[in-house]
């Protein structure tokens, strides 16, 4: 009974450790990690190296996969650029498996002692150290948990019942494979299951062959776990999740035959390879885990393009993903700052098209296949991407004309973000009012407001693209101050007998948002006009 509690407590500490490492490292790496990803995913080798590093830090290929999905969905990075990172994150998870195979009792105790003292002296209150200490405490607890499991499991190998069970498990490799698979689905990590299996091998509870099969089963289980987590995903995000599933399954499919051939005594295989490197059975298993990750990552890297093509066939990008992707700006364009600024200008013009589509959602004469919420989210994403891109251009250039134009585009971008938000709020306010019949005073006003704001946004898009001085002047006239006009309309409608409190809210919200939209367009037009030479004559 005591053995069971020792193992149970050890597992508990182990899981607390895994959680502490993951959560604290994510906090620690959050901001710079995102910047780093933008920079290093430019080349596949750097992308793969970041994958290994982040896999080692978080000890979860799922965490890296889902973090990458988030960035791809947000339009920060392309699938093909982030794929090497997802692929090679699996190799990074081998670090802890290898460490668990080594006797590091004293290191663990020292680590826990140092961390405890740091906590005692309140070093965790300093923002710089908080997450680092949390991660170190997690690492210490993880290994302490493993030590407890080792100590608790050591007597098991002499127990008759355990021997009988293991003999039964050993009799069927399929059973051992399934045990690894199920445990990995539950733990959502093949590394976690492999570490426990390596620990069991270390104390002689599991044989080398049993552990290898459990490790292989755990790899497939981890793939299944990712597939289950990805069931609520769609589009490009699901492509990356499916890629991770394929990597896991293909890795096992490639390594398993060598193991079977070896077990049947036909030819030397993976075990012989590990034995040639070390005599320690636990380290041998850890090396086989590493080999499995290397084989699957190498295969996926070699066939990345066709694999991604296959994934794309099964999971097409969603409307939001397509719209959220910048059409003109791209990372490499930054090398040529003048052209890069021109691309931002074009991207901003595209956003004006998106603005009219948002308003289309509440127009009788409008047609858009996209929901306004999708257009709003996509517009916001592209505008924010433009902002980051402009910040990078300004960071890297000191030429006066680039700085002035860059700052000008930043101001326009800020206005665009405001317009996107205003258009979305306007559509929400009109939708909340529900359908209004023609002839109804408020209904007629909403129709006039909708058609007017749509017209002005369309004219603005054309004028900003052509940069024609006469068109810009016309736009400035159309967007002149309307506060007195809107106030008059509000007073007239409020004077009607049948106006309800809900109508009152709709009236104020829509007329105010209309005024704000025109004011923002006017500010944008003034900025564009400043950069256009005066018309001749």
């Amino acid at each position, binding site marked *: 009974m005591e053995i069971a509690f020792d193992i149970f407590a050890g597992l508990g500490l182990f899981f607390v450790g895994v959680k502490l490492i993951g959560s604290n490292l994510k906090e620690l790496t959050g901001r710079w990690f995102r910047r780093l990803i933008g920079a290093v995913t430019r080349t596949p080798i750097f992308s793969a190296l970041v994958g290994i590093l982040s896999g080692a830090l978080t000890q979860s290929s799922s965490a890296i996969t889902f973090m990458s999905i988030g960035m791809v969905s947000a339009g920060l990075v392309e699938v093909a650029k982030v794929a090497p990172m997802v692929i090679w994150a699996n190799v990074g998870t081998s670090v802890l498996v290898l460490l668990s195979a080594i006797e590091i009792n004293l290191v663990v105790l020292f680590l826990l002692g140092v961390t405890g003292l740091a906590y005692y002296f309140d070093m965790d209150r300093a923002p710089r150290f908080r997450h680092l200490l949390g991660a170190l405490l997690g690492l210490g607890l993880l290994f302490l948990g493993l030590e407890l499991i080792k100590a608790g499991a050591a007597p098991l190998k002499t127990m008759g019942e355990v021997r009988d069970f293991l003999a039964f498990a050993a009799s069927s490799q399929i059973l051992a494979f399934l045990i690894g698979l199920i445990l990995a689905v539950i733990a959502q990590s093949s590394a976690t299951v492999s570490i426990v299996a390596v620990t069991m091998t270390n104390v002689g509870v599991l044989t080398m062959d049993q552990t290898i099969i459990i490790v292989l089963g755990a790899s497939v289980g981890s793939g299944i776990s990712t597939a289950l987590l990805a069931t609520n995903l769609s589009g490009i995000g699901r492509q990356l999740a499916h890629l991770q599933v394929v990597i896991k399954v293909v890795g096992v499919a490639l390594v398993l035959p060598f193991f079977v051939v070896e077990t049947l005594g036909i030819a030397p295989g993976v075990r012989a390879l590990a034995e040639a490197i070390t005599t320690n059975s636990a380290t041998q298993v850890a090396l086989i885990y590493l080999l499995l990750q290397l084989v699957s990552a190498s295969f996926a890297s070699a066939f990345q393009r066709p694999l991604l093509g296959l994934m794309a066939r099964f999971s097409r990008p969603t409307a939001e993903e397509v719209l959220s992707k910048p059409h003109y700006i791209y990372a490499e364009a930054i090398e040529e700052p003048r052209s890069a600024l021109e691309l931002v200008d074009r991207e901003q013009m595209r956003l004006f098209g998106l603005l009219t589509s948002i308003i289309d959602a509440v127009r009788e004469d*409008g047609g858009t296949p996209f929901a306004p919420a999708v257009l709003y989210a996509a517009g916001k994403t592209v505008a924010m991407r433009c902002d980051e891109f402009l910040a990078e251009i300004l960071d890297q250039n000191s030429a006066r004309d680039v700085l002035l134009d860059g700052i000008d585009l930043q101001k326009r971008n800020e206005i665009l973000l405001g317009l996107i938000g205003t258009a979305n709020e306007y559509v929400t306010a009109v939708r909340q009012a529900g359908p209004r019949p023609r002839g109804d005073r408020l209904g*007629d006003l909403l129709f*006039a407001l909708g*058609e*007017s704001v*749509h*017209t002005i946004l369309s004219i603005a898009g054309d004028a900003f693209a052509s940069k024609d001085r006469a068109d810009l002047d016309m736009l400035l006239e*159309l967007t002149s101050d309307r506060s007195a*006009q809107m106030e008059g309309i509000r007073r007239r409608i409020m004077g009607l007998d049948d106006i309800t409190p809900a109508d009152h809210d709709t009236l104020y919200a829509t007329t105010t948002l209309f005024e704000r939209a025109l004011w923002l367009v006017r500010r944008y037009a003034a900025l564009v006009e400043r950069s256009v030479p005066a018309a001749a004559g």
Partner: protein
Amino acid sequence: MIEMTHDVRGDVLILKPAKRIDSSNAKSFEDEANAKIDAGPKKVVIDFSGLDYISSAGLRVVLTTAKRAKAAGGGLALCGVHGNVKEVFDVSGFASVLGMHAGVDEAIASLKG
């Protein structure tokens, strides 16, 4: 197709669209107006008295017609707007930018002045 009649009084072309101008017929309005401006008088009056509905697409073709007439050395005057069409012209700012007249005669007079 746009339902539209036209008339020429001296050097002024009078266009009178009927019922509605929306995205389904705005292009045909634009084509017809452009063809008449290119072939005949450059001063144009659009009489909206027969129009009950105008959408954003309609407003934009009115603006392109104004630009076309101006570029050809003429001009555009609007008249006869009423009901919800008037409200659309008022709220959009087109009424103050392009100018509105009560009837065809006043609109023609504004182009001569």
